[in-house]
């Protein structure tokens, strides 16, 4: 199985299990492999048990529905009460969805300036800036802070290019020629 790693906002992978074990990641890292709906804390992977002090519940196997019947109850002959992992829940399990993976706020998408450049400047570079603004949000939500920051910068550079090529250079040129 191939694993992807997100350690302090930097993504890497895919690597196999042996390589993952040798990476010496801290318990702050998140891991994803095929079959998981979202990133999980490295401490929650059952296959890494022993390497990390387990925090929270290990994630359940896809088909496994664990039973939570205490032994005494079986000996007493009470019917087995089925409890799924989801019902037990875990207060330590991180909640995802709206919550971003990274503590730091999202780098600026620079969308305002991209829109302003698109509407006011004569070259369609602003459209490229909008595409990169979109990338900022996408990468940030995937936990890739480094990628998001670089997309943020790229977006700004396209906006600057639109302003320079579309607006600044012509009056400058006229001034130079007329002077």
């Amino acid at each position, binding site marked *: 199985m191939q694993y992807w790693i997100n350690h302090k906002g930097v993504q890497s992978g895919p690597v196999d299990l042996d390589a993952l074990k040798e990476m010496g990641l801290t318990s702050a890292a998140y891991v994803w492999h095929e079959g998981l709906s979202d990133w999980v804390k490295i401490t929650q992977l059952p296959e890494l048990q022993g390497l990390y002090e387990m925090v929270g519940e290990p994630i359940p196997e896809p088909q496994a529905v664990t039973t939570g019947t205490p032994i005494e109850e079986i000996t007493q002959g009470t019917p087995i009460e089925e409890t799924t992992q989801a019902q037990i829940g875990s207060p330590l399990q991180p909640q995802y969805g709206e919550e971003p993976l990274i503590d730091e706020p999202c780098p600026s998408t620079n*969308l*305002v300036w991209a829109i302003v450049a698109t509407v006011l400047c004569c070259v369609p570079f602003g459209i490229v800036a909008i595409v990169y603004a979109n990338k900022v949000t996408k990468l940030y939500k995937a936990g890739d802070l480094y990628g998001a920051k670089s997309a943020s910068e790229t977006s700004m550079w396209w906006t600057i290019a639109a302003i320079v090529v579309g607006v600044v250079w012509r009056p400058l040129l006229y001034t130079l020629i007329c002077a």
Partner: protein
Amino acid sequence: MTRTMRRGLLLLVAIVVVLVMGVVYYALDPSSSGFFPKCAFLEFTGYKCPGCGSQRAIHALLNGDVVAAFKYNALLLISIPWIAICLYAESQRVRNPKLYLRLNSQLLIWLFLIMVLLWWVLRNIFNW
């Protein structure tokens, strides 16, 4: 210079620039004055860009003629609320990251992008 001071100065410069530009675009009509830069894209390719007509639209808007502004560049008028929302989001980026992400969602950015591209194609077909 501290961060807040630099930001304040930048804001002041921005306000002054916008005010000066506002006065210029209010007083002078870009369709008759040679003072304003012409669209490089239109001159090179013969096709209108998404921003063509925005200078005339701003002049019309500042003189209170919304209908004329819409005819010059509909995208400009449609973009004004977007720009306002984005500016607000930008001011709340650090304080309210969740709101920022919601206002900068991929869906909203895609919507704007599709709108721009559609506008670009359609205005060249129908000569808007």
